[in-house]
C-alpha cells in the first residue's frame, strides 16, 4: 500500500477563487492510501516545495499528488522536489485543477466538486505508480544542417567552431542560397556578396564541415542524439574531387539556351554550368534536362575539353547514410508565384518584375552587369513604380496570397528605391504602400532617408491596375492622403512579392516528424522561450523556414540554433524518458502487431526459452522494447491483444483506475 501525500495549491486566487482548497484537501484525506493532506498559497514556491519535502520525510510518503496547475507547467518542478527529498520523481502525479478546473468553471461548488474528482483520479493513479529510472542513450557527436543559405552556413560554422563535425546538405549545386542573389543589404548597404562569400569559403575550408551540394535528404530515422539520415547525392556528371572549376567545359558547351535560374531566367546559361563565379563548391554541374550527351548520346564536347578528366556521363545518384546527434532545418524561403496577380500584368509585360529580379538587375554580377535597364528593350527606365504587399497580408479566404506580413519587403523596397535614386537621379521613383513597417535597428532612419534625402515618392495607397500600352506601363493607383486616383506612365514596375517557405519543407517536416503551421513554416517548441527548437527533440530551426526574417535576424537565429546544437552535442549521454513501453515476455504472443505499429522501430523479437510447469523447455518468440528508441506513445499497447505490452507511467491499470475514480 502506498503512503500518499496530497498537496493542494491555491495559486494565489487563481485556484482558490473558484475552488474551496480546504475542502479539496479535506475530501482527499479519506482516499485510499492518503496519509497526509494540506493546502498552501503557492506550492511551486520555495516554501511550498519545502512543505512537500518535509511531508515526504515526516510521513514517510511513497507517493505525492499535487493539485495545482497543468503538469505541462510544473510537473518537472514537483518531480525535482520529490527527488530532493529522496522520493522517486515518478511517484509524483499532478491533478490539473487550474487550467482544467478553476479557470474554466465559474462557481465554487462546481469547481470544488470537480477538483476533488480530479484529485481522486490522481490518487488512484499514484496508488499504482511504480518508481521509474531514466535510461541513457549515446549522443552521436555530429550535426546535420539542411539548407546551405546564410542560415545554414552560419549555423554550420558556429557548430564547427565548437569542434563538432557538421554536414551541410544543399539541393542546389552551390551553397549561398538567396543571399547570394542579392545586391546590397539594408540598412547598411554593404554588398551581400562581400559579406557572404567569405563565409562560404570559410565553410568550404573548415575541416569540420562537409558540404554535400546538389543533395537532398531522402529518409530520416532514429531520435535525438542518434538520427540516421539517408542523403541522395544527385548525379552532377562531374567528379567533384577532380573538377578544378576552370570553366573550360562551360565555355565550350554548345547548349547555350538554358534559362539561368540564378538570374531568375533573365538570361541563359549552358547545359554544363557553374551557378556563379564565387560558387562553393566551385565545380561544374551538367543539367541532364538539356545536355545532348545525356539525352541522346551526341556531343561529349565538355569531356574532350576537360583537361582534368572530371566529366563522367555515367555518374549515378549516390545514397549516403550517416548518423547525427542533431539536425538543423534551414530550408529558407522563396518569393511566391505571381501568376495569379493578373492586375499587375506580371505575365503580360517583361517590364513588370519581382523584387528579386530587380536585385539581379542591379547586381554587378547580374545579367546586365549591374546596369538598371528595362528587360524588354534594354532602355533606361525613367519612371519606376514599386508596389508593396503583393500577396502579403491577404485574407485567409482569398485564393491568392498569404495571410502574414512578409516582413522584409518594406526594407528592401526602401533600399531599391534609394539605390535607384542614388545611381540614377534622373528617375522618378514611386513606392505604393499600405503601411511602412520598419521595426529594427536603424530601419526607420533608413526609410526616412529614402524619402528625405533621396526624394523617393512614398504614396499611401495600392496600385489597382497595371496595363501595358506600347512602351509604357499605365499604372492606376490610389493616393489615399490626397484622395486622388493616380495615373502614372511607368517604365518599370517592381512587385514586392510575398515570401513563402521552400516547397521541400513540408515533406522534410514529415520525415523529421517536426510540426508545421498552416503556412508550412516550421513551428517552434515555444514561440517565446524556445524559438529555435522544434517540438521534436533534436531538431532545430534556423532562418526563414520558421518565419519571414531578414539577414541579421537569420544570422542571430542561426547562431542560437548552433548553440542549442552544441549544448546537445557536448553531452556524452542523454537521459531517456523512462515512460516507455515494456513487454511482459510471459504473456507475449510474438505476433508482431506491436512491431507493425511502432513508428520508431523500437521493438524487436528474440526467441526465448521458457521452462514449463512439466519442466519441459519451450522456445517462444517474444517482443523486446529498446528503451532508448521508444518514445512512449503507447500505440503498441493497444495493438497487443494479450496486454503483454504496457506503458510505464501510463499503465492500463493506472488509466483504468483513473477512469474508475472519475466515474465513481
Amino acid at each position, binding site marked *: 500500500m502506498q503512503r500518499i501525500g496530497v498537496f493542494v495549491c491555491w495559486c494565489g486566487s487563481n485556484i482558490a477563487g473558484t475552488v474551496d482548497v480546504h475542502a479539496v484537501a479535506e475530501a482527499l484525506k479519506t482516499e485510499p492510501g492518503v496519509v497526509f493532506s494540506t493546502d498552501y498559497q503557492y506550492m511551486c514556491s520555495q516554501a511550498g516545495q519545502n512543505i512537500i519535502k518535509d511531508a515526504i520525510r515526516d510521513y514517510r510518503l511513497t507517493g505525492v499528488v499535487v493539485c495545482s496547475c497543468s503538469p505541462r507547467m510544473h510537473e518537472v518542478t514537483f518531480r525535482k522536489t520529490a527527488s530532493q527529498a529522496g522520493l522517486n520523481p515518478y511517484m509524483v502525479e499532478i491533478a490539473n485543477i487550474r487550467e482544467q478546473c478553476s479557470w474554466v468553471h465559474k462557481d465554487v461548488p462546481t469547481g470544488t466538486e470537480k477538483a476533488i474528482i480530479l484529485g481522486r483520479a490522481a490518487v488512484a493513479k499514484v496508488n499504482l505508480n511504480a518508481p521509474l529510472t531514466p535510461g541513457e542513450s549515446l549522443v552521436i557527436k555530429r550535426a546535420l544542417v539542411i539548407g546551405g543559405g546564410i542560415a545554414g552556413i552560419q549555423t554550420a560554422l558556429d557548430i564547427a567552431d565548437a569542434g563538432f563535425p557538421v554536414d551541410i546538405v544543399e539541393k542546389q549545386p552551390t551553397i549561398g542560397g538567396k543571399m547570394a542573389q542579392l545586391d546590397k543589404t539594408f540598412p547598411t548597404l554593404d554588398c551581400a556578396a562581400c559579406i557572404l562569400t567569405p563565409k562560404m569559403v570559410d565553410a568550404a575550408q573548415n575541416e569540420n564541415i562537409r558540404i554535400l551540394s546538389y543533395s537532398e535528404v531522402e529518409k530520416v530515422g532514429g531520435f535525438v542524439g542518434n538520427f540516421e539520415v539517408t542523403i541522395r547525392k544527385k548525379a552532377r556528371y562531374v567528379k567533384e574531387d577532380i573538377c578544378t572549376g576552370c570553366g573550360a567545359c562551360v565555355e565550350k558547351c554548345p547548349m547555350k539556351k538554358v534559362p539561368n535560374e540564378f538570374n531568375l531566367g533573365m538570361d541563359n546559361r549552358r547545359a554544363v554550368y557553374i551557378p556563379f563565379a564565387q560558387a562553393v563548391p566551385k565545380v561544374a554541374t551538367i543539367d541532364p534536362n538539356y545536355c545532348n550527351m545525356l539525352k541522346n548520346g551526341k556531343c561529349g564536347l565538355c569531356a574532350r575539353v576537360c583537361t582534368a578528366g572530371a566529366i563522367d556521363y555515367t555518374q549515378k545518384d549516390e545514397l549516403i547514410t550517416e548518423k547525427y546527434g542533431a539536425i538543423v532545418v534551414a530550408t529558407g524561403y522563396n518569393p511566391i508565384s505571381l501568376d495569379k496577380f493578373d492586375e499587375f500584368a506580371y505575365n503580360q509585360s517583361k517590364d513588370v518584375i519581382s523584387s528579386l529580379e530587380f536585385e539581379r538587375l542591379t547586381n554587378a554580377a547580374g545579367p546586365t552587369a549591374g546596369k538598371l535597364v528595362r528587360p524588354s528593350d534594354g532602355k533606361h527606365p525613367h519612371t519606376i513604380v514599386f508596389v508593396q504587399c503583393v500577396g502579403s497580408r491577404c485574407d485567409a479566404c482569398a485564393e491568392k496570397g498569404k495571410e502574414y506580413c512578409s516582413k522584409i519587403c518594406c526594407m528592401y523596397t526602401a533600399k531599391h528605391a534609394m539605390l535607384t535614386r542614388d545611381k540614377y537621379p534622373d528617375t522618378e521613383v514611386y513606392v505604393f504602400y499600405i503601411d511602412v513597417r520598419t521595426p529594427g535597428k536603424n530601419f526607420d532612419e533608413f526609410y526616412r532617408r529614402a524619402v528625405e534625402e533621396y526624394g523617393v515618392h512614398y504614396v499611401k495607397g495600392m496600385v489597382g491596375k497595371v496595363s501595358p500600352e506600347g512602351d509604357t506601363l499605365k499604372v492606376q493607383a490610389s493616393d489615399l492622403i490626397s484622395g486622388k486616383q493616380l495615373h502614372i506612365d511607368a517604365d518599370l514596375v517592381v512587385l514586392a512579392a510575398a515570401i513563402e517557405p521552400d516547397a521541400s519543407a513540408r515533406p522534410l517536416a514529415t520525415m523529421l516528424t517536426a510540426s508545421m503551421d498552416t503556412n508550412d513554416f516550421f513551428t517552434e517548441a515555444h514561440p517565446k522561450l524556445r524559438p529555435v527548437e522544434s517540438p521534436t527533440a533534436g531538431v532545430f530551426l534556423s532562418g526563414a523556414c520558421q518565419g519571414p526574417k531578414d539577414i541579421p535576424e537569420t544570422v542571430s537565429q542561426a547562431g542560437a540554433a548552433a548553440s542549442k546544437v552544441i549544448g546537445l552535442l557536448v553531452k556524452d549521454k542523454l537521459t531517456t524518458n523512462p515512460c516507455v513501453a515494456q513487454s511482459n515476455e*510471459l*504473456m507475449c504472443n510474438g505476433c508482431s502487431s506491436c512491431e507493425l505499429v511502432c513508428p520508431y522501430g523500437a521493438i524487436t523479437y528474440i526467441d526465448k526459452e521458457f521452462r514449463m510447469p512439466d519442466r519441459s523447455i519451450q*522456445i517462444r518468440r517474444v517482443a523486446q522494447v529498446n528503451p532508448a528508441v521508444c518514445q512512449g506513445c503507447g500505440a503498441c499497447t493497444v495493438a497487443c*491483444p494479450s*496486454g503483454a505490452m504496457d506503458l510505464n507511467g501510463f*499503465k492500463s491499470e493506472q*488509466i483504468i*483506475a483513473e477512469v474508475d475514480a472519475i466515474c465513481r
Partner: protein
Amino acid sequence: MQKVTAKTLSGKAASLLNAGEVKYVLGWKKGEFDYDITPALFESAEELEKDFVWNDFSCANLSKYLIKYTRSLSGKILVFLKPCDTFSFNQLLTEHRIDRQKVYAVGVPCSGMADEKKIRENADGITAISETEEGYLVHTLYSDAPAFISKEEALLEKCLSCKGWAHIALDEQIEGEVFAPSADRFDQVKALENMTPDERYHFWQNELSRCIRCNACRDVCPACTCEKCVFDNPNSGVENKAAANSFEEKMFHIIRAFHVAGRCTDCGECSRVCPQKIPLHLLNRKFINDIDSFYGEYQAGLDEGSRAPLVDYDTGDLEPSQVFDWRDGQNA
C-alpha cells in the same frame, strides 16, 4: 456425406507415419455422441485405424492446436486442413505462432459440414446419426423410425458462404471438389444495421443475456491464442472472475471481437461451439464488413504475411465522425 472418404485420409496419414515422415497426426475422433466429433492427436497407424473420423461433423478447425503441439512435441505433425481452416493456418503463420517446419499440412476438400445444433433442435435423446447422400438419419430414444434431415437444412452457418482455399503452400493436397458458396455472408449484418438503434439493442440484449461466460468461444477461436487472455490477467485492470466487477461479464464479447478484428478469418467456430446459440459470428462479421467498406477489402489469412488493417493506416482514412453518414450513404 463427404466426397473424400475417411479411409483415404487415415490411409494417407498411416503411410506417412509408418514411413517416419511424420511423427504425429492431428485429426478428429468420436466423442460422446455421433455428432460430437472432436480434435485428436494420433501417434500410430493402429490408433488411426481405430478412432480416426472424417465426416460431416469433423467441423473442428485444427490449426489452433498446432501452436501448442509444435511447441511441446518434437517431430513433425501431420494436420488435416479443410479449405476454411487454411485461412486460420495462414493467419497463425503470419503471426509467427506456428513453426511451419514442424508441420506437414494436408489439404482436405470439404463437401460442407453439418450443424449439430440444427439437428438437435428437432430431436431429443439422439442415440445415433447416420449419413446418407441427401442428409442425415437421426435415431432417438423416443422413436423407432429414424427422422430425416436434409444436408441443406443442417448445413453449418459458415458453409453457406464458403471462402474456398486460402493462398497457401500445402505439403500435400487431396484431390476433390469443394462445396460451392452461395450466400452473402454480410446479409445479417446489413439487416441489423438497417434496424433502429432500439431494435438492435433489444436484439443484442436478447442474445447476449444468455451468455454464461463458459469461454468456449474464446477457447476454440484460432485468433484467440493469447498466452494469457487479458480477462485472466490481474494486471490488465479488467481481470475479474466473479461478477463483482460488471465490466468483464458484459463487455467480454465486444473486446474479444475487437482483439480479433482484422485477424478473424470468419471461421465461425465461436458460434458453432456456443452452448447458448449466441450468433457471435455477427460481431466478427460486423468488424469484417466495416473493415472491407472503410479500408478496402481484406480477408485475414488469405495470404501469409499480409498486414492486418488495424496495424496499418492510410492518411486519407475515414474519420470516426464520418463513419455513420458514410455507411448510411452506402446502404441507401
